[in-house]
């Protein structure tokens, strides 16, 4: 045996799992075919946040007067905005390299393929530097992630020119004047928000009847209103039938309520569909069981193949970095037979648009559909002192409690800094707080978080500031 554990893929699922494995005394290697940190650090979560910050600051500049400030005519250089984003990614990428070294994790640069082995599959790596290396380990973890799924049938396939997936959208060679974004999930909305902030004419197409469809309905409604105020356009309940290159750039054929429509723009971003990166990895040879294109796993990441585990995006939704990290740690602790209490935490979701969206747990509709008797509270930022002072009065906090037990079962927010605030509710839910605990918790004043307290009070008719 060369290693106790070989992790394939160094995204936020894989590299975090590797660190935890090393902490638990496992001799660990990690295989990466591209860049340490995976999509998250290099082509996802982090560089998009850098772009969005540029967009946010630029947008604020147009409101300087409201703050009693003025400057010369604001301007941006898209090349420099992208450069900053790339530098941020680079910094974090080398940070992961340092972490691997610190934890004595061997980084093997190359593309892995699994073959039948004894206790666990053998890992055959086509090395980046040339040649191949076979390693054997007691356990192998697939943390190979996922990517956006092209839909060639309708022409929605990144072409590196006018039809973009996230990579092209993150490193534009020019600043488009107009854009069509297909899909209004977190990725689509973030790109739409960024390009709109820089003045692009953006239309977002959503097949479902409302945007950010995984969020609570009230949040969807408020989000659409806030985005439209910024000049974003939406087509909801719209089915894309054809994407094609045209004189202006791209043309997109739609079907909205049975009527055909045609949109034109310079570029189109595809932000629909996710597929696991499971090609050429040996799925068939091993007889690895899949479920809707993802690896089928048990509660601790175990697969049907002895010694093989899978975590993160390749093991199914939600496709979120923090879910991957959490699964990775949990799986490694099982492999190392580390006794952890296996506390169940709900998985929060964040969208870094302007305004931001954050949520955890059940939406009001989902709670009702599950037959739960609920109490719902709301509190708008427009009456929150800190929000007024900061000029960030858009949005609200909404809470969903189980009426019988008083357990917080869902929280939904839209507003300036809600992605930082949601953690308070996640912690409350993980610790199994009831309304009494939220009532009794002291919230610092003045903060936007006070709206969380008020929304909890409101669910029980005890709101103070409305």
């Amino acid at each position, binding site marked *: 045996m060369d290693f106790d554990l070989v992790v394939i893929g160094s995204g936020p699922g894989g590299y975090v799992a590797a660190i935890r494995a090393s902490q638990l005394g496992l001799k660990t290697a990690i295989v990466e075919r591209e860049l340490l940190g995976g999509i998250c650090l290099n082509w996802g979560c982090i560089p998009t946040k850098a772009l969005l910050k540029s967009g946010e600051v630029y947008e604020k500049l147009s409101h300087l007067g409201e703050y009693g400030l003025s400057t010369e005519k604001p301007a941006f250089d898209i090349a420099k905005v992208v450069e900053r984003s790339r530098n941020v990614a680079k910094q974090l990428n080398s940070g992961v390299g340092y972490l691997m070294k610190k934890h004595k994790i061997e980084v093997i640069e190359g593309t892995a393929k699994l073959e039948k082995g004894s206790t666990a599959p053998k890992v055959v790596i086509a090395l980046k530097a040339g040649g191949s290396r076979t390693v054997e380990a007691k356990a192998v973890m697939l943390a190979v992630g996922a990517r956006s799924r092209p839909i060639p049938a309708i022409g929605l396939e990144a072409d590196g020119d006018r039809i973009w997936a996230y990579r092209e959208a993150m490193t534009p060679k020019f600043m488009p004047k107009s854009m069509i974004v297909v899909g209004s999930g977190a990725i689509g909305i973030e790109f739409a928000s960024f390009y709109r902030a820089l003045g692009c004419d953006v239309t977002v197409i959503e097949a479902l009847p409302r945007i950010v469809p995984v969020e609570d309905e009230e949040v969807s409604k408020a989000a659409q209103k806030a985005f439209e105020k910024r000049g974003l356009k939406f087509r909801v309940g719209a089915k894309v039938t054809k994407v094609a290159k045209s004189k202006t750039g791209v043309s997109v054929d739609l079907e909205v309520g049975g009527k055909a429509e045609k949109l034109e723009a310079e570029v189109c971003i595809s932000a629909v569909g996710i597929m696991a990166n499971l090609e050429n990895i040996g799925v068939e040879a091993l007889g690895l069981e899949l479920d809707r294109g993802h690896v089928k796993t048990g509660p601790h990441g175990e697969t049907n193949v002895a010694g093989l585990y899978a975590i993160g995006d390749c093991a199914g939704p939600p496709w979120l970095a923090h879910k991957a990290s959490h699964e990775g740690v949990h799986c490694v602790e099982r492999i190392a037979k580390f006794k952890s*209490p*296996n*506390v*169940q935490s709900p998985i929060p979701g964040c969208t870094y648009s302007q305004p931001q969206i954050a949520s955890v747990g059940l939406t009001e509709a989902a709670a009702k559909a599950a037959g739960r008797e609920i109490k719902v509270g709301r509190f708008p930022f427009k009456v929150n002192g800190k929000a007024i002072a900061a000029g960030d009065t858009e949005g609200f906090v909404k809470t969903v409690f189980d009426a*019988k*037990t*008083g*357990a917080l079962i869902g929280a939904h927010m839209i507003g300036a800094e809600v992605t930082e605030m949601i953690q308070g509710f996640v912690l409350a839910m993980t*610790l*199994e*707080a*009831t309304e*009494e*605990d939220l009532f009794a918790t002291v919230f610092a004043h003045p903060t936007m978080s006070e709206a969380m307290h008020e929304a909890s009070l409101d669910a029980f008719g005890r709101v103070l500031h409305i």
Partner: protein
Amino acid sequence: MSDILMPALSPTMEEGGLAKWHVKPGDKVEPGQVIAEIETDKATMEVEAVDDGEISEILVPEGTQGVKVNTPIARMKGDAGGPAPAPKAEAPKAETPKPQAPKAEAAPAPKPQAAAPQPTPPAAKTPSNTERVFASPLARRIAQQAGVDLKSLKGSGPHGRIIKRDVEGAPKGAAQLAAAAARTEPRQVLSLEQMGIAPGSYDLVPLDGMKRTIAKRMTESFRDVPHFPLTIDLEIDGLLAARAKVNAMLEKQGVKVSVNDFVLKAAANALKIVPEANASYTPDGIAMHHHADVAMAVAIDGGLITPIIRACETKTLSQIAKESKDLAERARTRKLKPEEYLGGTFTVSNLGMFGIKTFASIINEPQGAILSVGAGTQQPIVRGGKLDIGTVMSVTLTCDHRVVDGATGARFLQAFKALLEDPVTMLA
């Protein structure tokens, strides 16, 4: 001004009786002065004053039973303190229930002052078990709604915290069971009168601390410990001969070794041979005790007590004889210290002197087994196809099946039998 509280004289003491006051209001006391005698579950102990001062008020009269630990029993004026402010001193009295005490209380003490307002300690109304339970807020609420007793659950959360999933998996109504188990006395559904015994046809002897403890512990043990008896016969002619020799040798020292001392020694040695019988069940695992701390049941006026010969396997017969004599004497005068009767790992109960042939004792929790020793009597014995006369003694081992199963108990009894039938082997 300060209150003197009912002290906890042993780790398990929850309540006690106020046997006697040595002071009265107005008396000056100094540190170390004996002010009262407290009757605990097993012994009567003296309470000493901790501070200088003057007794301003006796809050719990002599003869009061079931006084919870930490209840104020008297009030003291400090040196600097003036007369006690009246409202404060009155306050507890205002809440004082009339002599019809709560059901957990003892019958009124058979003393004249029982007719006077009897300040019942406020603590007596609250559950005695105040041990903190770590549980999530949601787990607490669901438990309350479903009638699940958190104390009956084992937490699976961080550091054993009880979380939602632990409560949801718990059988409903467990609280009632647990509450019943937590009751301090055996259940009595009907009063004697309801059961046809006319009032006035009997005298009621109040339950003292010892009686209560025996009632509670024996009920719990008999009900909650899955127990079974194993009986074996021993021929003790060899033992009797050895005892005669030993005692002849020890005569000059004034030490007399009893049959029971041999039994204690043999039991201790057998426990070392079969350590699985020297064990206690706990929810976390079986506690394998390092030493055979053998308790011996001593009948005393008003009950019994089980003083302990510590590390009995390491002691000689004469040491055991001296120690057991001293412990038994002090047990009868209730002068044992708590550490002398708490924490045995095995008990020997001997009713041979009453001519009892066999009996099965109730396990003294948390011990894994108890040995009941019957009388040695001359009996016909078949030896090699011929009838002979021998002295035969029956012993019965009551086993906690969670710790000692049948074969383990049998192995212990075999070892015990071999040692006792041929006492010279105890030297090995």
